[in-house]
């Protein structure tokens, strides 16, 4: 038996989200929210472990009320229980305050054996929240896990990617993993699973519910040690954009000329 927690985040659909270059902001209403794609790999890894060893999978998220749909979606994808940390106290959190809130929620949940996180989110792209949660909970972590080799209810052996090295690492439980997209292909929820999830209750916890496990001043913008000064949306950089059409011979000569002029061809290589 193994009790697994998967922290998830609702992110905008990256193919559709629009950026307002003038105002320097992201138009979050331009795209519907979905579970961060990397978190789907984390959830799938957790559900596979549960299927093998028995136990439970609980997802936990922090976000605005509409993030409930993503927590519900996680139930359709195999989680047994979903929790949303919601309320204005949590708003404006950076990775430090986000990881603190999620770790506090996990403390309140009590017993767990394993926490599985996605490598990073597609919107923030920091990859910091997983390792920070592990530090708050004083448990080890292994990042960039691309394969789970062995798992039991006392320990886990994984393959971790360190650029040109691959490490096989053993950790006792409890521990935290951040997993890459290579670890699996997330399954699609069946219609029956979706129907079941529609009826399920998503537990919503506000800051007050965490009062016995957390310093409430560490939540949200107030608890965040980093601040966003401004956002700059670059107009596409000033590339030359010389496009050649017509005969391949002609185009190849012209491009080779250009590369040679830049010293990338015909020079001392």
């Amino acid at each position, binding site marked *: 038996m193994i009790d697994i927690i998967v922290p998830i985040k609702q992110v905008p659909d990256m193919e559709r989200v629009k950026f307002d270059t003038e105002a320097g902001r*992201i138009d979050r209403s331009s795209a519907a929210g979905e579970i961060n794609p990397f978190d789907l790999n984390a959830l799938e890894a957790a559900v596979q472990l549960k299927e093998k060893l028995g136990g439970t999978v609980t997802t936990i998220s922090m976000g605005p009320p509409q993030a409930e749909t993503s927590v519900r979606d996680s139930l359709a994808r195999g989680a047994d229980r979903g929790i949303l940390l919601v309320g204005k106290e949590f708003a404006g959190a950076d990775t430090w305050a986000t990881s603190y809130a999620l770790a506090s929620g996990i403390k309140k949940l009590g017993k767990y054996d394993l926490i599985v996180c996605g490598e990073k989110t597609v919107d923030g792209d920091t990859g910091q929240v997983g390792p920070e949660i592990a530090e708050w909970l004083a448990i080890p972590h292994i990042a960039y896990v691309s394969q789970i080799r062995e798992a039991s209810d006392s320990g886990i052996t994984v393959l971790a990617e*360190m650029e040109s090295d691959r490490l096989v*690492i053993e950790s006792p439980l409890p521990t935290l993993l951040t997993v890459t997209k290579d670890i699996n292909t997330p399954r699609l929820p069946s219609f029956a699973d979706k129907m079941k999830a529609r009826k399920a209750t998503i537990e919503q916890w506000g800051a007050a519910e965490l009062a016995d496990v957390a310093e409430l001043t560490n939540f949200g913008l107030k608890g965040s040690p980093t601040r966003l000064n401004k956002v700059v949306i670059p107009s596409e950089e000033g590339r*030359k954009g010389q496009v050649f*059409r017509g005969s391949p011979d002609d185009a190849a000569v012209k491009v080779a000329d250009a590369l040679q002029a830049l010293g990338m061809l015909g020079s001392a290589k």
Partner: protein
Amino acid sequence: MNNADYKGLMVFAEQREGKIHPVSYELLGKGTEIAKRLGIEVSAVLLGSNMGAEVNELFYYGAQKVYYFDNPIFREFDLLNYKHNIARLVNEVKPETLLVGATHLGRSLAPRIAAAIGTGLTADCTALEVGDEGNLVQIRPAFSGNIFAHIRTTTRPQMATVRYKVMQKLPRDPKRTGEVIRKDADIVDSVLKIVEKQGTGGVNIAEADVVVCGGRGVKGAGDFALIQELADALGGVVGCTRPVVDDGWMGKEHQVGFSGNTVKPKLYVAVGVSGSPQHLAGMRDSDVILAINADPSAPIFKLADYGIVGDLYEVVPKLVAEARKRS
């Protein structure tokens, strides 16, 4: 703790197998520039085992002081001992800024240090500036590089991981010297055990000066010979997009993009690559981009310096011939 108690800029010097990672030299280069402006000192913290003369390289690239933990436990990346000892040092020395290379090791380690010492951390910066009050302005891409966030840190040290191959290192100067301050390691239980280490044995495309990347336009695994030929002719290595890896045609170490490698070569050639936002996130900082694609409306052309609209099976052999003729 008062922010004014924190002085100087510290760089985490990452080593693998006793060799210092070049990103550390880049951080010393940028760190020196910032330190000169503020009139502060640049130090490095190095954890290793029997590093010998390699320690001096940090001085050659700009460090004025090196805090050196020499202990067999630091030969490999021992997460909890790295974190514990660096956090202790930071609490003792109190640097105003702590920079860490945004390698896999750095991005795994830095968040733990930040949480442990209770300070903010900005991930994967591509630019650092000095703000009006002498604070560090940390600039980073988010949303697959569609936006740049300018971030400041209210706590100290101001911590940032910084992307490899973005900052300039100083020219290596063996006449530069500095002070080595040896520190005793305080060993905690490692907990994690590395039982096996495998090299991928493959290319390290993040290091290459020329990357020729094949995408969905390449019709089969065998056709990557053509991509290889162009890479050879240009003196580069082969990259590929995610679908190519998913189909099992190429190894993951070749993958360029958001979930693969970030590259910044002098020349990037995209062959049959349409240019999804996820792919562009991994190569948009290349110096020169050449795109070859049959579809003139492919998004990759918007980012390219040079484009050839045409069938890659016709264009690439011609380009190989031209490149060979001129080399």
